[in-house]
Structures are given as structure tokens and as C-alpha cells.
């Protein structure tokens, strides 16, 4: 008797997680299969919806006002504004008090460790006191031993970006003598010791110089550390999100998976899905194949959601011959000439950034003729093409909206 469920979701990121949760809420039995630990652990923890239009216009004040300007093939255009809003509602339910930003449609501007300002729809509470729309002067604090974050440089970048407040950056010695290339988990653990929190506040105090809020790299994983620092400094303290690995992303991943667990979703991680089986007519998928050291095992279901990510997430594969989707062999439109896939400028308009499945209205993958390939497969997240999520700053919103629709359609088809 093989493993069997109503719905199998492939992919453990935001879109897969939301799809699994929504499908489970329809009453379906659901299994989520994730090859590795959730990719959310590499994410900044910020939830963006739309920061820039495809032509670069922005930052956008209100993403919902800009949705009409997106091209027809954009995932938002396929699922519609209601899905984007409902996706955010689901997210708000998942994170509860952990996150802020739900009080308004307007984008918040969150300073990052690179000194840029990211337009984002939802952000962790620990980030809230750092918003760039707030006019209070800001001190950024970095550590000598932590080379990823250069506080004076980030402060200069923010000033150059035209933020409406004074910025300063200071590099202080970390209160505990850590090795030169210490892991961020090590910093976070060390800061949980009261003596270190006290020493850090003492080291920062003399640099305040009129600053009304103080930002630290996102290592204050316990709220008590942040509030203790704030109390000692007499100023609000906030975290500055950074690149991977990210403790904010890790906390979000943990919350999402706790929610999935509570909703009764079965989770298999650590194993890759490598292929599929179909019925006799090749119209319906009957199982996906999970690789176990060279043997494959079928995981059966009635409905499937493909949420394996885009080029970076390995949901889409390229080689010299073309662009493919490795699990269901879905059609991915691309030029025959691979030199057309990219632009010569690093931040130019690359067509590879929009590579992905062409979805039907119900998010089923379509073939080169626009026909639905498998009626019981739906795609969600960045495996869906049509959006350059990195330059638009729309990755999380696309994942939430398409995850919601794919998961709901899959669950309701049972």
C-alpha cells in the first residue's frame, strides 16, 4: 500500500506552505514534500507584494493601485486582486502578532543591511521601529567580527537614498570574544546572555549622539533581547534584515510549519521529487516519484500542486539546449537562441527572470498550444512565469496569491 493523500504539494517554500494550508482547510488530506529545509530560511523575512513596475517605475506607494498596470501574463493578472488580498489575509493569520503592516495597503519602506530601502507589505515586529518613512534620526550598529554588515556604509547608503532623517553608523566590538568568522547563530546565542546585552548597551550608549532609534543586524532572535537593549538605551531598538542565512526567515519558516502541523498537513522533507506517473491517457497525474537513493517511490494523490520555485529554487532547469521543468516536464516558453535569454547588463531586463510555466486561469500548466497539460496539477510561486519577481519586489505576494488559488482549487476538486 503506497503512501496516498488527497493532495500532494511539492515544495516547502511560502507558496507550497500556503497551498498546503489552504488545501487542508477545505478538508482534504494533504502531504507537503520538500527536498531540503524550507527556502524561507534563506529569505529576508520581509513580505513584499509589489515594489516596482516591470518598467522600473517605483517605489510604488500602494501595490493595489498598480496591479492594473501589469501585463496580462503576470501571475497577479491571472489570479486577480482578490487573490492577492486573500493571500495576505492568510499570511496575517499564520503569523499573528509576529508581523506588522496589515493595517494599511500602502507599502512600508524597510532599510536593509545593504543600506537600501525595500518596499514591503508585511514585516516582522522587530523591524517596525526602523521604517524609513519614520522621521526619527537613526543609529545603525555593526560588529567588528560580523563582516556581513558594515553599519557606517549602510548609514551612508541610506542617506544617499534620500531618507528623511539623519543616519549614523558605528562599528563596535561584540561583547563576547568570538572567532573572526563566527556563525550568526553564535552571535544570537551570545546575545541571549544578560551580561552581553548589558555590555552591548553600554558600548552603544556613547555613540547615540541624538539618535532616536537604534538598529542592529537581525540577530536579536529573542524579543526579550531587543526590549532589554531598548530599555537600557532608552530608545526603540529594531532589527535590520539581511541576506541568507537569515534568522528572521528562519523564524517565519518555523511559524509556517507549526501552522501546517496544527492543520494536520503531513510533511516529508529531505527527499526530492524527481518525476511523475500518469493514467493511461496521459491526462491525469496519478503519483509523483520520490527518489530514495536511486529507487523511486510513488506518492499517490488526486490533486497536485507544483511549488518548486524558479531558476534559483531549481523548479526550473536550464542547460545549453533549453529550459525545462523537471518533474512534470511542463512547457516553459523560451527563445531557441540562448543568447536571447539574458541582457548584457547585470541589472538589465533579463528574459530568464520571467521564465516559468504558463498557467491557465485555474493555474494548471499549459502546453505550447495553450492547452491544459494535466487537469489535476496546479502551479504556484515562482515556478509560474511572467513576472520578474526580483526586480519588481513581488516574490512573496506572488507566492501567497498563487499558493492560495492553487491550494484552494486542488482541495475543492476533491
Amino acid at each position, binding site marked *: *500500500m*503506497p*503512501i496516498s493523500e488527497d493532495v500532494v504539494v511539492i515544495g516547502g517554500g511560502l507558496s507550497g506552505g500556503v497551498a498546503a494550508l489552504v488545501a487542508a482547510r477545505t478538508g482534504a488530506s494533504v502531504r507537503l514534500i520538500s527536498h*531540503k*529545509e524550507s*527556502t524561507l*530560511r*534563506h529569505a529576508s523575512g520581509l513580505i513584499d507584494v509589489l515594489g516596482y513596475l516591470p518598467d522600473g517605475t517605483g517605489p510604488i506607494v500602494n501595490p493595489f493601485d498598480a496591479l492594473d498596470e501589469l501585463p496580462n501574463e503576470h501571475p497577479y493578472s491571472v489570479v486577480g486582486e482578490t487573490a492577492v488580498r486573500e493571500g495576505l489575509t492568510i499570511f496575517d493569520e499564520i503569523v499573528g502578532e509576529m508581523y506588522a503592516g496589515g493595517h494599511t495597503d500602502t507599502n512600508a519602506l524597510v532599510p536593509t543591511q545593504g543600506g537600501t530601502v525595500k518596499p514591503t507589505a508585511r514585516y516582522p515586529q522587530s523591524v517596525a521601529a526602523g521604517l524609513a518613512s519614520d522621521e526619527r534620526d537613526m543609529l545603525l550598529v555593526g560588529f567588528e567580527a560580523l563582516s556581513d554588515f558594515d553599519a557606517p556604509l549602510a548609514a551612508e547608503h541610506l542617506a544617499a537614498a534620500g531618507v528623511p532623517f539623519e543616519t549614523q553608523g558605528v562599528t563596535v566590538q561584540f561583547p563576547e570574544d*568570538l*572567532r573572526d*568568522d*563566527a*556563525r*550568526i*547563530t*553564535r552571535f544570537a*546565542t551570545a546575545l541571549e546572555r544578560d551580561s552581553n546585552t548589558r555590555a552591548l548597551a553600554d558600548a552603544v550608549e556613547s555613540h547615540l549622539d541624538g539618535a532616536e532609534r537604534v538598529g542592529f543586524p537581525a540577530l536579536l532572535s529573542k524579543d526579550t533581547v531587543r526590549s532589554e537593549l531598548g530599555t537600557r538605551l532608552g530608545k526603540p531598538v529594531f532589527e535590520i534584515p539581511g*541576506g*541568507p*542565512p537569515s*534568522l528572521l526567515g*528562519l523564524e517565519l519558516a518555523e511559524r509556517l510549519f507549526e501552522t501546517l*502541523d496544527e492543520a494536520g498537513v*503531513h*510533511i*516529508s*522533507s*529531505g*527527499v526530492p521529487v524527481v518525476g511523475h506517473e500518469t493514467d493511461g491517457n496521459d491526462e491525469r497525474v496519478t503519483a509523483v516519484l*520520490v527518489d*530514495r*537513493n*536511486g*529507487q523511486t*517511490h510513488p506518492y499517490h494523490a488526486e490533486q497536485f500542486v507544483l511549488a518548486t520555485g524558479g531558476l534559483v*529554487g531549481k523548479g526550473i532547469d536550464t542547460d545549453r539546449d533549453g529550459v525545462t521543468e523537471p518533474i512534470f516536464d511542463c512547457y516553459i516558453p523560451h527563445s531557441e537562441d540562448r543568447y536571447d535569454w539574458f541582457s548584457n547588463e547585470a541589472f538589465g531586463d533579463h528574459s530568464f527572470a520571467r521564465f516559468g510555466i504558463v498557467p491557465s486561469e485555474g493555474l494548471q500548466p499549459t502546453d505550447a498550444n495553450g492547452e491544459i497539460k494535466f487537469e489535476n496539477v496546479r502551479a504556484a510561486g515562482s515556478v509560474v512565469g511572467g513576472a520578474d519577481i526580483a526586480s519588481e519586489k513581488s516574490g512573496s505576494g506572488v507566492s501567497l496569491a498563487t499558493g492560495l488559488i492553487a491550494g484552494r482549487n486542488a482541495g475543492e476538486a476533491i
Partner: protein
Amino acid sequence: MSDTEDTHEHEYEHEFDQSDSSPTGPTPVESAEAFDGLNADLRPGADNCYKCTSCDTSCPVAEVDDEFPGPKFQGPEQWRLKRKEDTDIDESIMSCSNCMRCDDACPSSVPLSQMHNTARGEYVEGMDKFSREYIRNRILANYGTLARIGSRVPRLTNAIMGNRVTKWFNERLLGITSEREFPEFAHQTFRKWWNDRGGSQVTSEQKRIAYFHGDYSNFNTPEVAKALVRVFESFGYEIAVPEQRCSGTPMFANGMLADARRAAKFNVETLSALVEDGYDIICSCTSCSMALRQEYPELFDFEGTGEVAAHTYEAVEYLRLHEDLEGELHDSDSEIDHPALAYHAPCHARNQGLHRQALELFRTLDGVDIEDVGDSCSGISGTYGWKSEKYDYSMEIGEEMFEEMKDAEGTTGMTECPTCAMQMEHGTGYEINHPLEVIEAALT
């Protein structure tokens, strides 16, 4: 296939002898060959690393031990350094506990644990063979050899190993922590029990499994092994209990690749013959199944290694794939009233996609109340937590799990890994069960 008395015991007793010239001993030629893993082309793995340091964030040792540079350094960075000039392997490789969490964390499929195993093997090759650390590690890595001798007189061995003088001696002379209680040897080994009952009670042409019990369930927890036998027999499986040696897990973790190679060679020869006869290989310990499935093919290339890997399963995984285990549990007439369970998923279960199966299976079962105690590493990682200089780190890593266990409803623990079980018991005083024991109670 029925089993006969151990005929290979004499070989085990030679395993510590450096000048061993028996066919399975470490002759100079063989010890050079033992590092065939080092010749594996690890370049694509190293090139795939884009330094995101997700592996470092998931490393339980790097979180508590500031001297440990983390898996990224131990794997791709050290490999690149060595390619450029003939640098020695950094001694910090010996602080890696081989929990293999980095493998699961890497978004780029860099074979981190394979790189660590090969680097550790190379480092140990250059170690002073008379140093306290080497001798201690070799003893820990070859637990099965000691167990084989000690279990002949289990009561005496238990008394000696529990003795304060023995512990003092271990701590001072060998660097084995005196904080832990040595696991007691069972008065009858599983293999003795198996032979006494006359081997398999079921014959079947179609449903055949070969049980790789490993040393621990043979010498220390035969009740787990017996549970496996009874459960599989209840599903109509013919069981073979082949001659076997340690899976190699503690040897990999201590860089004793020559020992691991000998053990693996023996196991692959025996098990691949059974695979050819239609047997699948079943483990009750997730580290054993990990070794056969992943580490053997990564480090060795004996004939049949790939076949053994492809046919190896963890026990509950196998039943869920091939039988309606969940249905049988629900339909069973046996009344279960099991104490509430605090379940810990071993790190090695994670990389096999198995860390949720006990929860999935028992959560919906009447009479069983199971609670997950979080995803932290237990901290013992086989032999790591037995080393005096690592004991405190081991307990610091385990702290989160201990706290979750104490917060859980019951005072009984559950895990698939024998050393995680030791740590769980050590940190909480709880009795620890294996999922197979609960399945046995429910089905038979």
C-alpha cells in the same frame, strides 16, 4: 534464510590490533585503499557552494562551540584550500559530530557530509596512533567490538562499567566522560534469542526482508529488535538475520575510515547477496540506514554497494510503503493505553525524509498520545557526547530538547536512534521507547 551462530567473532577481536595481518585487517595496502572516498571527484560539490552559509546556521556544534568554524569551512572551503596548495586538514574537523544537518540545509546540494568524512579520514590518517585522542576515538568508534566481548558476561560487564573506578579511569586516562552511565548490556543478545527461537517463523517467496539490527539493538536493546521481528512476521514477512558488522556510523564520525571500510565491505558482501535473492534490507536504527544508503555509496565502491543502498529502508518507512500499516493499527483489536510520548526526531532521520513518520502514524491512533519535542539536535551525535571535552557542548545542544521534553505531557520519550535515546534519558531521566515497540504492542 535461517541464521547460524556467529562464526566471525574471532575477526572482531583483532580490530584494534594495528599490525593485524588477517585478511580483513588493516594491511598497509588496504589502508591506502581505504580512502577511495578521497579520490571521489568532489569538485562539482565544491563549485556548487555559493557561500550562503545556511549550513553554518543549521550546525548545532557551531552554535555552541566558538572554536568550530562550521560546515562550510570543513567542506568546500577546506577542499579549495587543499587544491591550491598542500595544506593539512585543520584539526577542527574532529569537532564535527557528523549529525549531517548541513546536508539537509544546503539549497545547492553540496555533498557536505561526504566532504567532512573524507577530510576527517585524511586528518585521522596523519594522527599519532598512540595519542590519547586517537586511542579513545578508536575505542568509541569500535563500540561493537567491545560490546561483543562485554556481552558474553553482561552482568559482570554492567557492574564494571557502572563502577566509579572504571569511570574515573575512563575520564582520566581516555577522555571518556564520567558524567554518563554506560548503557547496560542485555542478559541475552538479540542474535541469541533469534537462534534459540529457530530463526524465521514465516516463510515467503514474495515478502522477504534481511534485518540489519546493528550492534546496539543486538547487545543493548534486543526488545527493539524482537519488536521488529514480531511486527514484520505479523505482516507475513520471512526474515533473515545475516551476519553483520557495525554499520560504520561511529567510525565515520571519528574518521576511522579503514575500520569503516572493513565493516562496510563485509556488510555489502553479505547484504548484496541477499538483495540478489529478493530480500530488502531493513534497519531499526536511522543511523544504520543512513550509513548503508548514503555513506557507503559516497565513500566506497565495492561491488553491490549501489544495490544495497537502493534496497535499504528504515523499518516503519518500509511498512508504510508496502503495507497498510496505518489501517492495520487502526483496525487492531489490541487495546492500547500507552503513556504519553515525547518524540524526538534523530538528525539522521531528517535526511531520509523520515522525521515526521512516527508523529503521523501515532497521532491519530487511539490510546497513544505523542508530542514532538522540536527540531533541535539531541546533542549526543553518537560518540560526540561521550568525549570529555565535548560533554558540556553536547548538553548545551541538547538543552532545548530537554526543556521541550519536560514541558511535554508524559514522562516517556520516543526516538528511532539509540544514542539520541541515551541523551534523552540522560537529560530527563525518562524511559525511552522505539516506535516499533509501540507498533508491536498495537498489532500483536
